[in-house]
């Protein structure tokens, strides 16, 4: 399927619209904050519109994953071509975009969270120009990762996100922002280097024969997924070789840092606590998903043997993350930190689900990625609203907000309960399927993991009680309820959370074909 605007593919628009917005913002005078904000809002709004168009035109039955023909909205151009030189063969890097069931929801999520982030950024007053310019650059990076089908391109987008994030945390963050920013930066950069190495190893191991009969080395992910393309004698040739496992582990670490999975998670709480609210929203809402997305898009189909070999490790780390994240969350007194740890716990569920290599588990995991994105975004916005008003974030600093801010409390309760996995809200559905899938593959690990939902209930309710219930403190009397702008950022998320909780069918349908194909592909012939 193709869809072009002015002759340029819709995915390119999606990815590069923010860059256009960034350039416009850079040209605007820094004093004109309103214009800058509206530009950002307009650009991301347009992006959301395009994302919805993509969703509407998306063909649910197409497989994707490793089947080049069934990717949608494909844009494939030769980007870097180095003609054959005797000793290297032809080199090829593609500008190759396309989506399948795995990425379509992520695109929607990214576009949505971006808009909401902009709305939430309205209250940023310092260095507005720089802020929004970096913000939009970040959005491009995120969107790019989700649509890139060339490893090289993927990696570029992956790394493009790093620097804006560093600045966004480092300049507009809280008191320990520098520490948090550098920690984030170093961690992810470390992951990036590992990924780069694996990428190169793959590049040299994979060569396909093109129409002209030439051996072409390529970064094309789809070619890498075809085991016939591995050059005999190359480092990653074969199945279940040591080097393939090493490559798998390296890739896994690089993605696990982003997820973040225990024990690679310690950057997250710091980053979240110090980041300004909109950036926390982006971070939790989209960035963390990149890790799991990368695993599904790259690690699973390209190194299926490693995936099968290490599935218990993945599940085990997922389990640890679930329990450990929940326990840590319980110990927190900082509201934001609490949610940060809860993110670790929830992403652990994603990990557990996808490690199962079952259809339900994977679908649950991807759905959980989406749902966690919306729910945690809401939670961070909720903290942000309180912080805006009181400049406090301690769980103990509040109490009785429910009476003072009923709308706010209502929304907060929905978000909290969604995070807790209450049926009828989206979090439940994805947790359910993740666990169901996981149980199929790992019985005891899953049973232990399920205790995590009890812990989750405990810390969430405990927080609800501390913050919303009880007597209202004097200093919080007269706190205003949500403004129209704030409602605007909550309501779409609220609707999604409830809708997917009640009727997840459409969302599952979007990804089912692709993911069942992925699972079959990974399992095929190996397990």
């Amino acid at each position: 399927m193709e869809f072009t605007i002015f002759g340029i593919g819709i995915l390119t628009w999606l990815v590069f619209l923010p860059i256009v917005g960034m350039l416009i913002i850079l040209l605007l005078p820094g004093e004109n904050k309103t214009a800058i904000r509206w530009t950002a809002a307009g650009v991301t709004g347009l992006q959301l519109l395009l994302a919805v168009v993509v969703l509407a035109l998306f063909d649910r039955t197409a497989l994707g994953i490793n089947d080049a023909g069934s990717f949608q909205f494909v844009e494939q151009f030769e980007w870097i071509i180095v003609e054959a030189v005797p000793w290297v063969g032809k080199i090829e890097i593609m500008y190759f975009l396309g989506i399948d069931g795995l990425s379509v929801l992520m695109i929607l999520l990214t576009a949505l969270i971006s808009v909401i982030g902009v709305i939430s950024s309205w209250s940023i007053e310092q260095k507005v120009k720089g802020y929004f310019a970096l913000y939009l650059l970040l959005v491009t990076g995120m969107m790019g990762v989700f649509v890139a089908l060339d490893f090289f391109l993927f990696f570029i987008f992956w790394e493009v996100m790093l620097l804006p994030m560093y600045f966004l945390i480092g300049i507009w963050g809280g008191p320990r922002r520098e520490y948090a920013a550098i920690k984030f930066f170093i961690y992810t950069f470390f992951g990036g280097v590992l990924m780069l190495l694996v990428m190169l190893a793959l590049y040299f191991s994979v060569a396909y024969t093109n129409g002209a009969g030439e051996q072409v080395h390529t970064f094309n992910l789809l070619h890498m997924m075809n085991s016939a393309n591995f050059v005999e004698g190359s480092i990653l040739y074969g199945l279940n070789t040591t080097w393939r496992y090493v490559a798998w582990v390296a890739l896994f670490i690089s993605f696990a840092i982003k997820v973040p999975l225990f024990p690679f998670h310690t950057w997250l709480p710091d980053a979240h606590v110090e980041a300004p609210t909109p950036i926390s929203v982006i971070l939790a809402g989209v960035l963390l998903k990149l890790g799991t997305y990368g695993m599904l898009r790259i690690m699973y189909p390209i190194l299926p043997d490693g995936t099968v070999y290490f599935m218990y490790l993945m599940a085990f780390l997922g389990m640890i993350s679930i329990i450990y994240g929940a326990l840590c969350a319980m110990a927190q007194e900082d509201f934001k930190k609490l949610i940060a740890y809860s993110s670790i716990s929830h992403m652990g569920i994603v990990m557990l689900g996808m490690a199962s290599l079952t259809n339900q588990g994977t679908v649950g995991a991807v759905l959980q990625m989406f749902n966690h994105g919306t729910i945690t975004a809401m939670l961070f916005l909720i903290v942000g609203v309180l912080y805006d008003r009181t400049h406090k974030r301690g769980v103990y600093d509040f109490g009785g907000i429910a009476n003072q801010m009923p709308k706010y409390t209502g929304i907060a309760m929905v978000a909290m309960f969604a995070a807790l996995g209450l049926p009828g809200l989206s979090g439940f559905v994805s947790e359910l399927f993740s666990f169901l899938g996981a149980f199929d593959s790992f019985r005891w690990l899953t049973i232990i993991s399920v205790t995590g939902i009890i812990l989750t209930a405990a810390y969430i309710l405990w927080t609800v009680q501390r913050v919303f219930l009880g007597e209202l403190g004097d200093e919080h009397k007269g706190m205003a309820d949500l403004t129209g702008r704030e409602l605007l950022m909550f309501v779409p998320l609220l609707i999604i959370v409830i809708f997917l909780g009640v009727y997840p069918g459409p969302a599952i349908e979007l990804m089912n074909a692709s993911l069942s194909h992925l699972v079959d592909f990974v399992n095929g012939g190996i397990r």
Partner: protein
Amino acid sequence: MGLDTLILLSLIVLFLPLAGFAVLVFFGKRLPRQGDWLATGLVTVSLLLSLVILFARLTSPESVTAGWTWAQFGGIPGIGEVTVELGILIDNLSAIMLVVVALISTLVHFFSMGYLEGDVRYSRYFAYLGFFTFSMIGIVLTHNLLMMYIFWELVGLSSYLLIGHWYEKKSASNAAMKAFIVNRIGDAGMFIGIMIIFVHFATFSFDAIFSAVAAGNLPFESQAWLTAAGVLIFCGAIGKSAQFPLHVWLPDAMEGPTPVSALIHAATMVAAGVFLVARMFPLFTADALLVIAYVGAATALLAATIAITQYDIKKVLAWSTISQLGYMILALGVGAYAAGFMHLVTHAAFKAGLFLGSGAVIYAMHAALHKQHDHDTDAQDIRNMGGLRSRMPVTYWTFLIFTLAISGIPLTSGFLSKDEILAGTLAFSTLNGHWLLPLIAFGVAGMTAFYMFRLLILTFHGKPADSKRLSMIREVPGVMAIPLIILAALSTFIFYSFNPLGASSGWLFQALARPASVVPEAFAPATWPVFYEAISRVHTPVMILSIIIAVAGVAFAWLVYERRSVSADKMAGVMGPLYRGSRNKWYFDEMYEAVFVNGTLALTRISNWFDFNVIDGIVNGAGTVTRGVSKISGWIDNVFIDGLVNFLANITGSIGMRMRKIQTGSVQNYLVFGVFGFLIITIVLLSI
């Protein structure tokens, strides 16, 4: 009536309360009277429709199911396409339960209009009631485990919201939280059970699961897993029905408004566990059922012994509820399916009545205290009451009927069901030799009669604690009185069986035929014919015995509290521990408690104490431990993982710092290093 119509009706029944909830949440405050009429009206319609459904159901032979795809997965290896369906199943069980739920809910709605008049969050309250009703009906109507679990949790949520209705009170919000978390523990077990089922059968639907098991397809080809699945699913019931050892939340839940206690914590939600066991009955192996029976028995006994010593009118009722729920579970566990479920129905009526009655009392007490400007006296403490009979005749008489019913006095509904349960346990013990079960059952029956009459007498009879206050007590308004009267009527035998001494001939009993077990015979419970035969053998003696025990209980209460020929205080003061132990069942608990603490607490508070310091203590202890563990992991996070990272960074940094020192600034040193490097390489190379 066509099947489709039936489904449609049931859907209307399901969604009407939800509609009420939605309207009230968003617009409640702007509606006249804050919309209570709307909620009440919708529930009433639901009730009427569910009566229609019940009627239709009883007159047609087959159960009705309908399903809608909720989610679909393709190509699961070895299984193929899997469709997760939501759907509705209407059989006798659900139809009866539907009426019970709708009825109690309707009555509570009416009652609440009076009870909560002028409350801060009046419309919110009705909204939540509507939401609760919706969730409860969802549990009842579902045809699959998934939906059961979904509504199961939603019920938990509405319970949370309603218990915490007065969330400004710390105790209320604590109780709400406790209820939810304790329930979640049970739910987690249930979730695992469901996972076992789904992962093996790839379906949630009851029918499909049952037929698969009946075909000999056991989860993971093992009977142990089937038993485990059963027990784990039963965990949900343990939580929701406040069975031992997860019963601790229910007494606390009395922090919610009294009508809520009546609706949720007496009649419907807590009965959901019983409903679940009944629904899943064919799946349970004999082992699983035995576990269920013993849990029920333990609960019944434990709660009854505690109830005897309570002074808070609602707490007594709460413990009594737990005890009665234990009864039901016990009944189902032993295989007395119809008896257990029938007790659910009858209990729903009289326990709701008791709660509403207590609500009326509390309401009146509050009003009186308010007039006296007395804000210290506890309006719920029965020691502050006494003699209310004269001022609140309607309440008294209805309360009396409920008390008789729960005590198992003939001509009441309670007698019918309790009698069948006792017969069932005895029959079970004759078959299997588990004699402890009937023993407990009978004992608890006696205790029930005793403590319920104790409550009645202390509240309505005798001398008033404060005659001035008594004179200010007014009977409750009609909107509250009428539900009481209706429930009182429903607590008589006539609605369930025309034979006041035997339920088995009544329509309800007939309608609740025990479903055949699908478990392979080797580990299935005794079949119905066998069991029925055993029951027939013991039925008559049991009936006589139960009447005697009930009357004895009542009489003893009468002696102690009305006639005061035996002084309770004296008994407590005079008797030593050993002596009391030989006379009373609940001495068992006291001795147990005495191991842990000095026997310095007042006799009347020992049960309470047991709850808080032992059971709750364990939960709190677990909580403390958990918090401790979480602190430790937080510490690990900070010190170890972060520390490791920082350590590496520091190492790198310090190496850098040290290496920097090599750069001494002396060019000749540099040359020395260079020459050294040259030498190393050369020598290494030459020596290869």
